[in-house]
């Protein structure tokens, strides 16, 4: 349907040797023209199809990577449209930068399954494959929907919501006045709005800058540490994020009652959440913490279950084992420095997971834990989906779009445009931000108008 140009990372986001960024759509040749620099000047629009070109990808003056560019013109491509594939060096950073660059120069991030959808709609796939295509679209979308919002950091989500509310409020005011000019006047509102939008631009700028540092979404393997109270979960977390390991982000300022840290192990990033100890409790506050711990564990890519090896297993342990039975998990028998009463075999008889003996206090067994995790990762037992990266880029594009729209509002104000023009761009910004938090406009504006302002009649 849409003939705009889409882009995505075609390879898995692991530490592979090469990565591929793929573009499809009418403008993909024009876009590569703008960012490619080879030994010789090339005219991609008129170049032969199915050719490979060695050169560099540039974002303005900055050289991003040495690449091979493949040109496949429609209809002789997977999607049936003009397609460009940029083969670059592997590694998360480079691939991401190249994707960001093609987006900056006119492509947009592909929706989940969109390449396949285009291939199908352009008649490049057998009709019998329709069901498979539908499955891809819906499953990928489901994942993306889930990840899109859940990957968003709590404070970022809150900030975006605040900005949206502010935008909606002012749009609603303008619209109420336009709708009921005899009761409400919007004259001279531009000046006030200017200040408001300036502040919003500043907020968005901060978010955009932090998105460059990967701080906007939680990239990495979602790891949750669970266990009974005093099993040593927090000590383990402290050891894992200790000085000799890079703390990528700290989440100071978040108010969640689950502590979260991000660490790097051999180039794998883990988002580790320490949770309240799980036990049957009547205490309401503690119960909330425990319930949350269960929810996080359920959503996690990886669970680290810490057992206090100096104490007997009880029904709380069995409950935890039940909870993690179908999850990727590692079981740690902690407090090996004390007299232990629990052995690997005893646990093994209840649940089949890798089991390691450690002492968080004396930092013993940590190396083995790292090795185990690394093995699980490279054997594909645990992985993070590349959707996460795409999500981040989508979010960033949306933030940038919102920023641009708000700048247009400022321009309209400064050019003395009538007030009704402000709402066009305000609403665009509102919509862009909504795509990050997974909210659509729907009846928001009309509801806001009626709830906040008194219409006459």
């Amino acid at each position, binding site marked *: *349907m*849409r003939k705009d140009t889409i882009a995505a990372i075609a390879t898995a986001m692991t530490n592979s040797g090469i990565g591929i960024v793929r573009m499809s759509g009418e403008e993909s040749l024009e876009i590569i023209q703008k960012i490619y620099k080879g030994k010789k000047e090339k005219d991609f629009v008129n170049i032969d199809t199915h050719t490979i070109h060695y050169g560099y990808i540039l974002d303005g003056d900055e050289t991003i990577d040495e690449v091979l560019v493949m040109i496949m013109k429609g209809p002789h491509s997977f999607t049936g449209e003009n397609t460009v594939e940029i083969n670059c060096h592997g590694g998360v950073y480079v691939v991401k930068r190249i994707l960001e660059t093609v987006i900056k120069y006119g492509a947009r991030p592909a*929706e*989940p*399954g969109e390449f396949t*959808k285009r291939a*199908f*709609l352009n008649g490049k796939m057998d*009709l019998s494959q*329709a*069901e498979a*295509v*539908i*499955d891809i*679209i*819906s499953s990928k*979308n*489901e994942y993306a*929907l889930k990840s899109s919002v859940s990957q968003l950091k709590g404070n970022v989500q809150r900030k975006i919501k605040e900005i949206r509310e502010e935008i909606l409020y002012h749009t609603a005011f303008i*619209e109420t006045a*336009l*709708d*009921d*000019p*005899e*009761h409400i006047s*919007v*004259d001279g509102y531009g000046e006030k709005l200017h200040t408001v939008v300036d502040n919003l631009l500043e907020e968005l700028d901060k978010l955009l800058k932090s998105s460059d540092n990967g701080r906007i979404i939680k990239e990495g393997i979602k790891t949750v540490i669970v266990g009974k109270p005093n099993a040593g979960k927090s000590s383990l977390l402290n050891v894992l994020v200790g000085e000799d390991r890079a703390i990528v982000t700290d989440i100071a300022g978040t108010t969640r009652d689950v502590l979260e840290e991000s660490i790097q192990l051999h180039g794998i990033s883990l988002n580790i959440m320490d949770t309240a100890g799980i036990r049957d409790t009547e205490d309401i506050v503690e119960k909330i913490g425990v319930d949350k711990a269960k929810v996080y564990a359920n959503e996690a890519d990886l669970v680290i279950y810490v057992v206090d090896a100096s104490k007997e297993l009880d029904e709380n342990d069995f409950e935890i084992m039940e909870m993690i039975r179908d999850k990727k998990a590692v079981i740690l028998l902690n407090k090996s420095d004390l007299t232990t009463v629990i052995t690997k075999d005893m646990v093994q008889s209840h649940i089949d997971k890798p089991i390691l003996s450690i002492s968080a206090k004396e930092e013993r067994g940590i190396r083995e834990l790292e090795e185990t995790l690394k093995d699980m990762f490279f054997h594909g037992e645990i992985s993070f989906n590349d959707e996460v990266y795409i999500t981040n880029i989508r979010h960033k594009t949306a933030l940038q779009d919102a920023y641009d729209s708000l700048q247009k509002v400022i321009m309209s104000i400064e*050019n*003395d*445009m*009538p*007030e*009704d*023009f402000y*709402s*066009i761009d305000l609403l665009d910004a509102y919509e862009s931000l909504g795509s990050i938090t997974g909210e659509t406009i*729907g*009846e928001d*504006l*009309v509801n806001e*108008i*009626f709830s906040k302002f*008194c*219409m*006459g*009649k």
Partner: protein
Amino acid sequence: MKYSANSVWENRDEIDVVVVGAGHAGCEAALASARLGLKTIVFTVSVDSIALMPCNPNIGGSSKGHLVREVDALGGEMGKVIDQTFIQSKMLNKSKGPAVHSLRAQADKANYTRTMRKVLENQENLEIKQAEITDILVKDGKVTGVQTYSGAIYRCKAVVLCTGTYLKARCIYGEISNETGPNGLQAANYLTDSLKSLGIEMYRFKTGTPARIDKRSIDFSKMEEQFGDERVVPFSFTTNPEDVQIEQASCWLTYTNETTHEIIRANLDRSPLFSGMIEGTGPRYCPSIEDKVVKFADKNKHQVFIEPEGLDTNEMYIGGMSSSLPEDVQYAMYRSVAGLENAKIVRNAYAIEYDCIDARQLYPTLEFKKIEGLYSGGQFNGSSGYEEAAAQGLVAGINAALKISGRDQIVIDRSEGYIGVLIDDLVTKESHEPYRMMTSRAEYRLLLRQDNADQRLTKIGHDIGLISDERYQYLLDKQEIILSEIERLEQTNIGANQEVQDVLKQYDSTPLNSGTTLAELIRRPELSYEVLAPIDKNREIMHKCACKCTNYVDNSEKTVDKLCQEVIEQVNINIKYDGYIRRQQKQVEQFKKLETKRIPDNIDYNIIKSLRIEAVQKLNQYRPISIGQASRISGVSPADISVLLVYMEQYGK
């Protein structure tokens, strides 16, 4: 010949279309159908209440003015009648962008009713009949006729329901409740059951109206006088602007105060709204004064507009103070307002409850999905307002006529008109209150201006057969002149010579450093086509006009020919807002792609794997006609739309 007393009498006249109700929707529906050559009969509970305005004495207003112009551009009647019967007129939002300019006129109610009635009475193919319709006759899912209260049967090929607020209507104030329609007119108490038995789902909505007060009892010296525009712009594209430059009546502005609010607060328990006596859902945009006082407790005053109901009556409409409080409280409340201290109430304020439908049972053509040949329009569809009603009535009447004639029915989409936005919202979105048009509901409002309604819709009106060849040719000529004039202005270079700088200086515009085009100059907010006349040496394109526009400099529009005025307006708007207009045109292109993807009637959503359950339910329930419409149903996600697209591709082969 003697007729049997026992048998049902059947009217043997040949009737194509029956219109039930002769309010603003019914009048447009009946006229459209009759004008398209179909034998039409319009039923009303009272011939004296044809085109009655039971609430506010206005036509138009923000976004509603757009609707009236669109109705006119399609060949409807409302604009022409109000142009003949208005007593004050204003272009609202004049200082804002052209998209939100909106005409609003005070009507002489009695004159409006009389004038519209005269049009109906003299319309060829149209018959007026006073009778209450109690049954819709349906056979094999197709409409076959209607039956009146007396039992008489009228066979027909299509029925358009425009029952407004009359179905099981109940008027309420305080503890008083009357089973009547607006203004004490007889309610229609039987049709609801007939519709329900046909499987149609009904809602119960509520609205209200303020008191009418005797002009002689009002102290206007305590109020601000409100005048109409000096230069009135007509609603209808066919009205000669000179004909509407009349002497205008005034309206008056006053305010409620803390005493008013105190009276209301102290008596809230006696309000049927708060006591639970009223169950219908009221509109948020048209709150009663008690609603306003409760909801916006921090406001210490609310505006009250005192508007004449006509020239030959002393009744004044108290805008902003609709209420359903008991009579004694009404007196106290109105009399607490400055200037109304001695007010004599002619008619009490009241709330009215009535039956209407969930319009999602309709196709965008306004035909019922379940019953072929049954159409509906107006407040019956869950909207509010005379203008919204007229717009739907027109479309329903047109489509009933087109269907019977075996022609393609029309659907105006969201990018073509407010009518499209209105109908699409009604038939697609869930609504819990009477729906009112608002400019913020139109996503392409920069394109849907009141000034270009003719350019958007008159071709459709002409294709249907409601617009004469002559009128259509006028439009084509006008469009041609506009286009060539814009082109000329874009291409005419202007040097930075002294004459040019002098003109710029005269309007406080920055002097030129180098050459530019006339169009670029027009884009400056302080300049316009008009003021650039002295440096625009080749304005001969306007040779078609009767006036000498080439000499046109000042703003005394009175000297300018109608066509010329219209052209100048369009040239200014199209050049000044070119960037924004292009942006919206691009969005419309995207929109149209989904809109034109038709979903086959017999599609079975249950067998489409991967559609989410909620989507399947909603799609089954509302059977959208296009992918575009499907995408606007709440509960249908973009992923569901992708799945649908792929499925349809496979299905289509």
